[in-house]
């Protein structure tokens, strides 16, 4: 047994960190998030495409590196709270490959290189507050209906739409489709509600779709959990540094025991999330029978943990943490997005119960 990363994954971590520090420091990404229409850096995503990152989850023969690598990369992206559809794109690439369909394969190839953005439109998204969710339907070569909370739906070149008939690939028509922004409190993660009535291709029938989607859920949970880990890891790092510098009542505030114990709790939750995420990534990598269960566990734990850590990070910074200028709120907000999507905490807990019973 060993817990630390092997050479290959360590190299991936350090090169990813270097890349992100150089190309996507939060100081620069701030202006992209706040000012660009798409909300993220397209050049960076192109570069990630050139380097093969979106295809991380593909089989090794197709340039993939496996779930541990996937978790390592997402953790690093969490540390800089990277804006953009990277996770959604990587999941869509995997799904396109899993369709085993020619049209899908072509889009998969392009999406894996970062040339186009394909994202998945799931039925469940937004369902929590809608009594009935209208599922888009597919007939006569067209997909019709409303997809909601589609991540970066207004920026996507194509959607992979979950319908009762299966997965439908719908390319954005020249005139554009009706995509309406759904601004959430995390302004850096864009969502859209899309009225669809466009030509599409059925790339997976309902049974293929079902089994592929059942496999994408744990991968999505793992990716989101890894990103949450990076988010809280960085928030804690920033906080302990601040507590060592800042003084009040004649002492560095990090010497006050009540604050020290708070930081200890933040570390406990951060390191526990790390154990859970790494264990889930290892289970997925080694094809363990409990991989889906462990992914649900990791996501169910990491969400509330990151919420606690980021909330306390703000609290321990006092007023300055409440300023827009300071970065901490980006982490707090990203936590909320990651917690609510890719299977909310409540749904992951229920999934963990069901998956355990099924083992």
């Amino acid at each position, binding site marked *: 047994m060993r817990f630390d990363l092997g050479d290959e994954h360590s190299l991936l971590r350090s090169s990813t960190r270097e890349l992100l520090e150089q190309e996507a420091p939060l100081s620069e990404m701030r202006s992209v998030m706040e000012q660009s229409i798409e909300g993220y850096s397209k050049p960076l995503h192109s570069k990630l495409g050139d380097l093969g990152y979106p295809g991380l989850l593909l089989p090794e023969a197709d340039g993939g590196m496996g779930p541990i690598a996937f978790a390592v990369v997402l953790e690093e992206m969490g540390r800089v709270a990277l804006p953009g559809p990277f996770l959604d794109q990587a999941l869509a690439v995997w799904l396109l490959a899993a369709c085993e369909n020619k049209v899908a394969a072509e889009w998969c190839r392009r999406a894996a290189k970062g040339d186009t953005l394909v994202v998945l439109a799931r039925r469940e998204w937004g369902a929590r*507050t809608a009594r009935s969710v209208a599922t888009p339907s597919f007939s006569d070569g067209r997909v019709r209906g409303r997809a909601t909370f589609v991540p970066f739906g207004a920026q996507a070149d194509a959607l992979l739409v979950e319908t009762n008939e299966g997965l439908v690939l719908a390319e954005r028509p020249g005139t554009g489709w009706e995509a309406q922004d759904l601004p959430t409190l995390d302004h850096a993660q864009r969502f859209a509600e899309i009225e669809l009535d466009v030509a599409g291709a059925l790339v997976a029938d309902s049974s293929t779709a079902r089994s592929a989607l059942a496999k994408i859920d744990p991968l999505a949970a793992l990716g989101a959990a890894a990103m949450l880990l990076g988010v809280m890891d960085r928030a804690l790092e920033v906080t302990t540094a601040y507590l060592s510098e800042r003084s009040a009542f004649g002492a560095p505030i990090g010497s006050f025991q009540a604050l020290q114990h708070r930081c200890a709790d933040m570390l406990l939750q951060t390191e526990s999330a790390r154990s859970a995420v790494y264990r889930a990534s290892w289970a997925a990598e080694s094809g363990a029978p409990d991989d889906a269960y462990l992914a649900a566990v990791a996501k169910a734990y990491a969400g509330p943990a990151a919420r606690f850590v980021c909330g306390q990070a703000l609290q321990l910074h006092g007023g300055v943490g409440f300023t827009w200028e300071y970065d901490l709120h980006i982490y707090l907000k990203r936590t909320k997005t990651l917690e*609510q999507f890719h299977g909310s905490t409540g749904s992951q807990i229920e999934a963990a119960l069901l998956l355990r019973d099924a083992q």
Partner: protein
Amino acid sequence: MDLGFTAEQESFRIEVRDWLAQNLERPWRVESRDPSHDADSLVEVRRRWQSRLNDAGYLGMSWPQEWGGRGASEVEQAILQEELIRADAPGIVNGLGLGLLAPALIHHGTEEQRRRFIPKMLSAEEIWCQGFSEPGAGSDLAALRTQAEPDGADYRITGQKVWTTFGPWSDWIFVLARTDPEDRHGGISFFLVPIDQPGVEVRELKQITGHSEFGEVFFDGALAKGEHLVGKVGEGWRIAMTVLGFERGAASLAPPASYERQIDGMIAALRETGEYENPSVREKVGQLLVENEVMRANGMRTLATLASGQAPGPESSIEKIYWSEFHQRLTDTALDLLGPKAQLEAGPQGALQDVNWGYEYLWSRAGTIYSGSSEIQRNIIAKRVLHLPTAR
């Protein structure tokens, strides 16, 4: 024990309700949600509303009659605040001026200062902001370093203040500044400083909510006239600490009234989707309701204690911790239960009722920091209420 209101108090409540029904422009909240809406218009809404409240005699109700008072007790003030919140009225623009500065002037100011400042503060003709906190002096307020150097009979102020609510729209600022660098508490004095002068620069301070009703104020030799020193030199700390405790009773029913509106908004949204039938959802909502009702009990207790002529002690720290941490639990739970749609602002995507949950979630983060952080409040309780030993 008597936690009920008198017939007079109940009829005052009816009077307020009737007045609100006739005077409150309902669409103000809708207007403030409009994306094109900006901070200027929010301040204008608050200014107009304050002026209207003042005309009706609802401000400074407990002050001496010549300064707008009508012999009202804390109970009437609390009733007023509760009704304002239930009716979803906007805030006023001079909240800190009326809450902190006016009592300071009434108790520690000169007759000239009262005449000069109180009427226009009430009418909102002049907007005031508070200059206490500094970048290096938040929880440890006495560490403040803004200097006041004597200049003849006057003073020159140099330094920086932060978290000045409505700073960018203010005409005046009341400032704690250091007149003796050696004496931690006794070296602080209390000044009134006009903002429209060369030595003062105000910058907007954008918060994590994306709004900027706070500001930073930079002083570079700004003039504070000798006649605008409140109390004596070196009395600033004492005056500030005294007035920070004023008007406490008036606010004691406000937080539970406000959060009850939010809980009701959540329940309405959950009923709409049918999720209110889910036992897990009911238990979480019920838990919030219970905690809010207990907060109201705490508020009634504070109010009753004040009304019977007793001063509540540092137990008010309990109320501060309670409402601020409760608001975080409330918004946390609401976002969990209502899902991402709850974050959407008003619009065709079907925003949820009256409550802007995304905003409330973020804003709730401020409550445990300002006006004495939760950590400071717990220090106060340990020392002044529980009398636990001090570290050597």
